């Protein structure tokens, strides 16, 4: 596949041009320095000097609220939601978030393929932006993610001295390069070498936690006093699940505004919430914060692996940064290691 260069000054022109032809989602710096993936239509500044966006780009395929169909309460007539229109580009996703998309892909495919997710997935070209300077909070390498790697991306951009190296990974990525060729120039072996040096340094810098023995510990022990300790702090606010790139839980809700019609939507939901598993009769299999917190971390460190053989955590560090109670999955990994080694 092709590798090309794009000058720093050309990035905005390239994105403006893409935004004219396709639906473009890219990181944008908003008030209070918050970076979010937003639909950009061209002209507005796209943020390139960010560590990561506050909310993961899973939203592009699995929106926080998504209409599935409209219904008539009068005659039960149903009208499916319009399929996603045209080609899309997700620009600037970090390798951890791209890996997370790979982790939730099988949830939305399998025996009951989900057309809303898969349609958007198929129509989207993912342009990843390599992390050449991961932060102290990042620990993607723990779960086999290369911070400057391209797994799952169609096109990988890596920032060099005064330009970006753009490597097409898939035919989709190659097509994007070809379509906007005027913004790119030829890369040399020197550029590839510079990229490899930066990628190597990033891999050296990023935290790689030792998870040895944790899976086995959790396989054997559903009950651990540790969960109870941890749950004392947890507020069950759900922010960790909101910003997590691998959380895929949703609710299904009908919205009506009087009259004889309405829409059925799916909305993000959270296993941190009491009503998530509470049944109509009142029985709740996860009645307290302990069960709910345990479910979240078991999902990340065991259940998703059991079910899909894919990591349920990609080490983006968002949850640790956002938790109002300082519950930190890195700390949990360390402490579970201690429990595994010392039996408590």
């Amino acid at each position: 596949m092709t590798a090309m260069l794009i000058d720093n000054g050309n990035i905005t022109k390239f994105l403006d041009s893409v935004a004219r032809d396709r639906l473009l989602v890219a990181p944008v710096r908003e008030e209070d320095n918050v970076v979010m993936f937003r639909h950009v239509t061209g002209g507005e500044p796209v943020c390139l000097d960010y560590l990561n966006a506050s909310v993961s780009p899973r939203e592009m395929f699995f929106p926080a609220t998504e209409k599935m169909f409209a219904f008539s309460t009068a005659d039960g007539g149903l009208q499916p939601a319009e399929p996603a229109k045209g080609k899309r580009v997700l620009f600037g996703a970090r390798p951890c978030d791209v890996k997370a998309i790979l982790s939730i892909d099988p949830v939305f495919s399998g025996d009951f393929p989900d057309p809303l997710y898969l349609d958007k997935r198929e129509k989207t070209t993912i342009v990843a932006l390599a992390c050449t300077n991961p932060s102290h909070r990042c620990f993607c390498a723990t779960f086999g993610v290369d911070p400057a790697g391209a797994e799952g991306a169609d096109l990988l951009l890596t920032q060099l001295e005064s330009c970006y190296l753009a490597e097409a990974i898939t035919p989709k990525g190659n097509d994007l390069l070809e379509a906007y060729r005027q913004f790119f120039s030829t890369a040399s072996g020197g550029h590839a070498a510079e990229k490899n040096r930066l990628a190597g340094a990033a891999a050296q810098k990023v935290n790689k936690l030792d998870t040895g023995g944790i899976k086995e510990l959790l396989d054997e022990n559903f009950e651990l006093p540790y969960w109870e300790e941890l749950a004392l702090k947890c507020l069950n606010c759900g922010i960790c699940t909101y910003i997590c790139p691998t959380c895929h839980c949703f609710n299904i809700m009908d919205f009506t505004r009087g009259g004889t019609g309405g829409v059925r939507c799916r909305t993000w939901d959270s296993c941190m919430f009491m009503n998530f598993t509470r049944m109509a009769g009142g029985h709740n299999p996860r009645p307290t914060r302990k069960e709910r917190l345990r479910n979240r971390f078991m999902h990340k460190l065991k259940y998703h692996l059991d079910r899909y053989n894919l990591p349920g955590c990609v080490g983006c560090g968002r949850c640790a940064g956002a938790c109002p109670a300082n519950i930190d999955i890195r700390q949990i990994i360390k402490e579970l290691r201690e429990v595994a080694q010392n039996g408590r």
Partner: protein
Amino acid sequence: MGGNCACAAGNPLMPHTATITSVTEETGDVKTFQMVFDDPAVMENFRQKPGQVAQISVFGMGESTISITSSPTRKGFLEFSVKRVGRLTTVLHNLEPGCKVGVRGPYGNHFPYEIMKGRDLLFVGGGIGLAPLRSLIDFVLAEENRDDYGKVEIVYGARSLDDLCFKNGLMKRWPNIKNTSVYTTIDREDPAWQGHVGFVPAYLEEIAPGADNKYAITCGPPIMIKFVLSALEKLGFPDHRVITTLEMKMKCGIGKCGRCNIGSKFVCLDGPVFSLNQLKELPPEF
């Protein structure tokens, strides 16, 4: 699995429209709804197996997971016996024949009726717990299947005479089928009731059905299940021949929305039917 599932517009979360064709009042808070898909081709292609579930929509209110209580041997309609316990079931209870609903499914695994062939069957139910069992009872008692199975015993109880579901089956239809016995009990004395009084687990121990070459299938309130399981153990049933079906809050029914997991298993995909030995492998979170 997915290929056989009835959903509209290629979206497994979008139901097909169906019409309620009859409503039977089973008890003060249980009604059986017979539903027929508006599209005859959808009805024809809906192939459920005993023990599977479906999602019932009341448009504007939402959806709920309900076990299909009619046997696949009875074609052209689906029946759902629904207890009025929450928001959706309350609204559903207000619907009458002719009302439109949505149905998608069938979902989940099913009672292992193939490996039960040639065996005797003991059904133990309590309250609305008879609803999912009824799909298998009517399946094995259907004329075309009856000779595939041995003796059928049904032990069923409810809080009161009024709370007995499927009275027609219990009192008339099932006892008159060859090699079939029905034992019914209610929790408390009632002047209008000549039958047995007492809790299901105790009655089961009293009847003391043999465990040889027999599968026990049970469903009911959690407290009943707990004591029934211990009674079945005393009677000599090995764990792999004790079958139950679990209830969980579900939204999607197809393993995506994430709430019906017990450990790494999703009840909507890997269940709702589990044998006791499978259940013992799961974390106690149900």
